[in-house]
């Protein structure tokens, strides 16, 4: 046995034992434990295998910088790979498994990589696996992929829920240790809206493991008192279990709260994790400092741990990391751990101090070896001894754990996320946060003030300044006295010389000192190059432990200052964040809101099969009894409209009401065709271009009164056209007197099309809608029987006699039902998008399949519509560019297969007969194709080079993707009723 639970002490609740499992073993811990402290209490030293060499590894830290103790928690879809045991709150039933090992943690075949390590140094991938060339993908890469990676993602649907939330505050305090608590208290008392966030499940930070006394209380009691006062302040919000992971522009902070990660059975009404976007007027970073590991031979053996972590485990969790502990230190902190462990009855085998002149007092009877270095460790899967070298003499000291303390690094991650670089302090031998203005202020140990008294004061003082800055007056406050603390100074030691075994810098990624040296030798000495070449700092801990030592080593090896080496870039996330938390509720069917037409229910009752169309759901077709495929339904619908009449929901088209004395002028500039003289009571098809001369959108616009128009847009671009119009009205022509708003949602709009459309409609409309009274392109307000006012437009997409009727949305279903009822005698049917598409292809009408953003009006056959008279309209000038008017542009044509039983598919390309397929020979492509039930064969719209000159020619419709080639005749794109007799009937 090495590690064990102390008989007393700590903040765990010994009256609340918790059962949990690790690698299928049943173990027990206490409420208040982390998984790591509970594993240690059960003497589970070996917890994982490293990334490359699969070396046995143990717990190193007591916090989020842990490189080794990564486990998978949970089972199946409910499993979390790569969970850090050091931050995982223990709960009853927690089930954890070790990772990156086969067949077991103890006997891992992958460890053979360690034997090959001379071949697997930094950058080895790049120099090898090239011979023979074919072997890389078939042999080498799969092996590398399998060996790499840590936990296993099951990629099953996550049964848990997540959500997002916004929060606002005057001051965000990150970290609830001595600095954060005092800052929150000072700001809270001054009346600021304060949020105090801490990643730990228990607030108090380092105070929870502190043995010094504050005022008249223990550090823990002091923390409890402050927390009690903070809880009593309505303007202070406490957020435990909340990691602030990112600092973004305008002092927006991203944080993730683990709402139910620590419970065995999450409540359904709560998320397991919640993303917070905290908008903070000011923020204070009280994130403390990280203890620096020492780089010495054999420093990765289970049992080697940060000295501070040992202290935390003993003081906070009541767990001793070993029975006989050696401490390797370059400063006072190692002595502090020795003292605390001694107080708990743990034997200190020796303190190995790299300094010659340390003045720290060791506990009574403890042996101190000065000017010494550790060169190796003994033991296989756990430490059995430490090999110390001093003045050329080696000695082995038996021990079962080694605490290492290499100094301190302020945790400044967040402050460096927005581009400012960390600043080297020659005094403190570490990097400090840059000055980033008063939006984010760093205090306490995070600012390099390591004493407890200093932290308490710094937190309170800086919060008071920020409060004053925001116009609050701070309540005066005297910092409490601290008794029994030490100043943890140190002398930097980047490398303990004389290593007889690999001395690791990055534990998880297996980067050791020689790798850094190799990188430097090969020209990868820039800190970013070294990182990328060796993978130092690229593991799940993102170099929290290894980064500073890599910088120090690169500096030392080149004989320059760490200031000249610098750090790699700090980027979000401070600690890894689950996809789920960042996605919140926006997933699956809720990934985007659903828009429903006012006729949705009507369509449903009529057997619609829906298809999504942007955010909308629209009927694709209406299945009737006996119809087995969409084609059967569609063909029936098409023929019904061509012969009788049909009703189609077109409510989703954008509708914009346009008012004002300059409304006509505005439209005239917006469309490429003229609108100034559109008479009241008339509709006109309009074509809108982008400024580069390509078609943007099309639709009809009707003049309802002299100063009132209503425009329709396509469904897809309803929002885009609205924004475009607002841009034109506000940015280009604010002098025009025009106002407009969307009325898309106000109206249920239905197309009634077919030779019998008038017959059916007249039964409901009180006004005269005969061809004479209401001819093609008439538009106006009519009254339906029963007195309902409606808008009626005589426009047609199908080429049939057709109307669009608009009624207030709430009445849409009732009116549609009435039309269906009246139409039954005339054989009316409901029709969907599929039939609509066939009808319009037959008529040669275009949609966004044709207007794909690369097409000019002339390409699509609208050249004559473009006004030559108008002095200006959007897109006029660039329409005349050479390439947009060139004779060999692709123009829209119709295609019909020469053999009428052959098929044409949209997306096929076009070749001259006999031409070899090549990009150079490519003549164009099919934009839309369908089976025409009216004609009895396939038809298509296509864009073909100089197409309009080529009617009657044949082309090969080349669909290699389907393995099909069809010879087709080029024709006019209007397949049905080219004389518009039906339209005007």
């Amino acid at each position, binding site marked *: 046995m090495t590690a064990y639970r102390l008989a007393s002490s700590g903040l765990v609740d010994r009256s609340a034992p918790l059962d949990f499992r690790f690698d299928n073993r049943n173990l027990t811990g206490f409420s208040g434990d982390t998984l790591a402290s509970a594993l240690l209490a059960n003497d589970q030293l070996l917890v994982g295998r490293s990334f490359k060499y699969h070396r046995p590894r143990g717990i190193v830290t007591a916090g989020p910088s842990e490189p080794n103790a990564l486990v998978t928690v949970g089972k199946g879809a409910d499993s979390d790979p*790569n969970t850090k045991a050091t931050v995982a709150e223990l709960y009853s039933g927690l089930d954890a498994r070790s990772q990156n090992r086969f067949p077991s943690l103890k006997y891992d075949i992958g460890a053979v990589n360690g034997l090959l390590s001379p071949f697997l140094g930094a950058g080895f991938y790049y120099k090898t696996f090239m011979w023979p060339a074919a072997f890389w993908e078939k042999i080498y*890469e799969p092996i590398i992929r399998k060996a790499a990676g840590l936990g296993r993602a099951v990629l099953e649907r996550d049964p848990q829920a997540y959500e997002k939330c916004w929060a606002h505050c005057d001051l965000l305090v990150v970290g609830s240790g001595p600095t954060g608590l005092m800052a929150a208290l000072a700001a809270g008392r001054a009346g600021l809206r304060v949020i105090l966030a801490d990643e730990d499940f228990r607030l108090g930070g380092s105070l929870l493991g502190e043995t010094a006394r504050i005022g008249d209380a223990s550090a823990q009691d002091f923390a409890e008192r402050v927390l009690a006062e903070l809880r009593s302040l309505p303007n202070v919000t406490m957020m435990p279990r909340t990691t602030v992971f990112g600092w973004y522009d305008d002092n927006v902070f991203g944080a993730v709260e683990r709402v139910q990660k620590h419970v065995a059975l999450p409540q359904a009404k709560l998320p397991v994790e919640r993303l917070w976007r905290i908008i903070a007027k000011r923020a204070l970073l009280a994130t403390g400092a990280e203890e620096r590991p020492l780089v010495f031979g054999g420093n990765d053996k289970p049992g080697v741990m940060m000295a501070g972590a040992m202290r935390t485990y003993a003081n906070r969790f009541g767990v001793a990391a070993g029975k006989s502990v050696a401490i390797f230190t370059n400063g006072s902190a190692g002595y502090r751990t020795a003292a605390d462990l001694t107080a708990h009855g743990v034997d200190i085998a020796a303190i190995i101090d790299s300094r010659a002149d340390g003045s720290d007092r060791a506990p009574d009877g403890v042996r101190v070896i000065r000017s010494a270095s550790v060169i190796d460790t003994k033991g296989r899967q756990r430490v059995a001894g430490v090999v110390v070298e001093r003045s050329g003499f080696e000695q082995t000291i038996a021990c079962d754990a080694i605490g290492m303390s290499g100094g301190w690094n302020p945790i400044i991650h967040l402050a460096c996320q927005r581009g400012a670089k960390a600043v080297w302090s020659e005094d403190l031998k570490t990097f400090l946060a840059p000055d980033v203005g008063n939006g984010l202020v760093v205090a306490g140990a995070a600012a390099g003030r390591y004493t407890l008294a200093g932290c308490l004061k710094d937190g309170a003082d800086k919060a008071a300044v920020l409060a004053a800055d925001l116009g609050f007056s701070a309540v005066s406050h005297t910092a409490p006295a601290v008794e029994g603390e030490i100043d943890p100074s140190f002398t930097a030691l980047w490398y303990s010389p004389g290593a007889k075994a690999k001395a690791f810098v990055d534990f998880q990624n297996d980067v050791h000192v020689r790798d850094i040296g*190799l990188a430097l030798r090969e020209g990868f000495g820039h800190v970013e190059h070294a990182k990328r070449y060796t993978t130092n700092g690229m593991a799940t801990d993102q170099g929290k432990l290894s980064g500073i030592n890599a910088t120090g080593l690169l500096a030392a090896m080149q004989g320059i200052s760490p200031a000249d080496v610098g750090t790699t870039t700090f980027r979000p996330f401070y600690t890894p964040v689950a996809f789920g938390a960042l996605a919140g509720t926006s997933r699956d069917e809720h990934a985007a809101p659903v828009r429903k037409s006012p006729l949705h229910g009507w369509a449903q009752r009529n057997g619609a099969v829906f298809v999504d169309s942007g955010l909308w759901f629209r009927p694709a077709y209406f299945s009737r009894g006996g119809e087995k495929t969409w084609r059967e339904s569609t063909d029936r619908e098409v023929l019904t409209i061509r012969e009788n009449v049909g009703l189609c929901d077109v409510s989703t088209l954008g509708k914009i009401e346009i008012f004002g004395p300059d409304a006509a002028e505005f439209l005239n500039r917006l469309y490429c065709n003229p609108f100034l003289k559109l008479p009241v009571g008339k509709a006109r098809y309009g074509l809108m271009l982008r400024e580069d001369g390509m078609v943007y959108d099309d639709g009809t616009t009707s003049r309802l009164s002299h100063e009132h128009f209503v425009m329709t847009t396509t469904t897809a671009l309803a929002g885009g056209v609205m924004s475009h119009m607002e841009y034109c009205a506000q940015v280009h022509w604010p002098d025009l007197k025009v106002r407009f708003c969307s009325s898309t949602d106000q109206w249920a709009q239905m197309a009634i099309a077919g030779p019998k459309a008038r017959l059916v409609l007249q039964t409901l409309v009180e006004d005269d809608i005969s061809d004479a009274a209401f001819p093609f392109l008439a538009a106006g307000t009519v009254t339906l029987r029963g007195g309902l006012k409606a808008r009626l437009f005589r426009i047609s997409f199908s080429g049939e006699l057709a109307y669009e009727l608009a009624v207030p949305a709430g009445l849409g279903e009732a009116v549609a039902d009435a039309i269906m009822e009246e139409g039954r005698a005339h054989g009316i049917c409901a029709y969907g998008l599929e039939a609509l598409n066939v009808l319009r292809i037959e008529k040669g009408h275009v949609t966004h399949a044709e207007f794909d953003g690369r097409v000019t009006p002339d390409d699509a056959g609208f050249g004559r519509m473009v006004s030559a008279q108008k002095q200006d309209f959007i897109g006029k000038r660039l329409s005349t560019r050479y390439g947009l008017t060139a004779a060999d542009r692709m123009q829209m044509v119709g295609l019909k297969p020469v053999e009428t039983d052959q098929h044409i598919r949209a997306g096929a390309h076009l070749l001259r007969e006999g031409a070899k397929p090549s990009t150079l020979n490519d003549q164009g492509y099919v934009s839309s194709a369908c089976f025409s039930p009216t004609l009895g064969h396939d038809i298509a719209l296509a864009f073909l080079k100089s197409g309009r000159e080529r009617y009657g020619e044949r082309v090969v419709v080349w669909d290699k993707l389907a393995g099909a080639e069809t010879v087709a005749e080029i024709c006019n794109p209007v397949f049905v009723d080219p004389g518009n007799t039906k339209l005007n009937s």
Partner: protein
Amino acid sequence: MRYSAFSIVKNALTGNVNWKPAWRQPEPKPYYDVIIVGGGGHGLATAYYLAKEFGLKNIAVLEKGYLGSGNVGRNTTIVRSNYMLPGNEPFYEFSMKLWEGMEQDLNYNAMLSQRGIINLYHNDGQRDAYIRRGNAMWMEGVPAELLDRAALKKMLPFLNFDHARFPIMGGLLQKRGGTARHDAVAWGYARAADRLGVDLIQNCEVTGIRRDNGVVTGVETSRGFIGCGKLGLAAAGNTSRVGEMADLKLPIESHVLQAFVTEGLKPAINHVITYGAGHFYISQSDKGGLVFGAEIDGYNSYAQRGNLATVEHVMEEGVTMIPGLSRVRVLRSWSGVMDMSMDGSPIISHTPIDNLYLNCGWCYGGFKATPASGWCFAHLIAKNETHPVARFLRLDRFERGYPIDEHGAGPQPNLH
């Protein structure tokens, strides 16, 4: 030193202390026949091909930071040639072929992994557009396959087939598409160029372009004036700033694109997959991290960092495409500054100044283009004529009316 099985074993047995620097650290000479501005993937590849394919001798690459410090080291490592328009597809296929021979050519393992790229489609319109694209690829001799939903379900069972807001109907597959180790591409070209005598000069920022009678004579740099016979700009991300030194008017905006990597995981996703109902794309690196990204943040930016709103949007798309990602933790995000052109396609071109050549506008697509970009730019500089596969990528195509607009979005860069 050539990398071979022999050199690996020999060095391993001698403690790996005899490896030589991958490249020299030369002092700049007073004059070079050709100077390339930008020591990223494209600049380094250009220098390499100038030396190797076009026989030029006196070449320098000037890099303001360290080699590969720009977008070649901050992308999502995707390699593909699945374009639709004739201005693009032959160029990217030329690039693909160069990728396929790169490792042997450079004697450097860039870990090209042709695991296949699948573009998902979610509606009929997208399907038709992919059929058009797939056939355009075949026209250029590039194999493509259209997968239906059943085939996808078998291949990628973890996709959201049951609860998707935008149902997955199928996908377009290019089997030869895949990934490569991004840094290694820069290092491989750098090392190979250096071996051919190219001077790679780091920490050398160009601060001015000197012209005499309308001809470039050299560049002012943070390390002094350096003369040159020809100047090639390959500084994507900073094109406008460098171009301004020569009074070039450019159709370029700089935008920030974020990318992400998860914690290392055992192999789970074996293709490159792109989402059709958004911009999300994902693959898994050989180290196990899932590498992914989506759209640009949308505003002009030279900051190599993005904002949270985009991060959330990317994750929403990811979880919607692959529900099982929900529990996977994202480790790190980073950002590159993209040269966004007005049509979403790149520029390899002459400029109004005779001996000044321009390589820019790579939008999202710079990494996969690295070898062809280098080759075609070298061709242009060495021969003063465009390479056939890059002949549409001209700077003056906008005023002439020949945009290469794959998305049909028009001259608004943040829509491409």
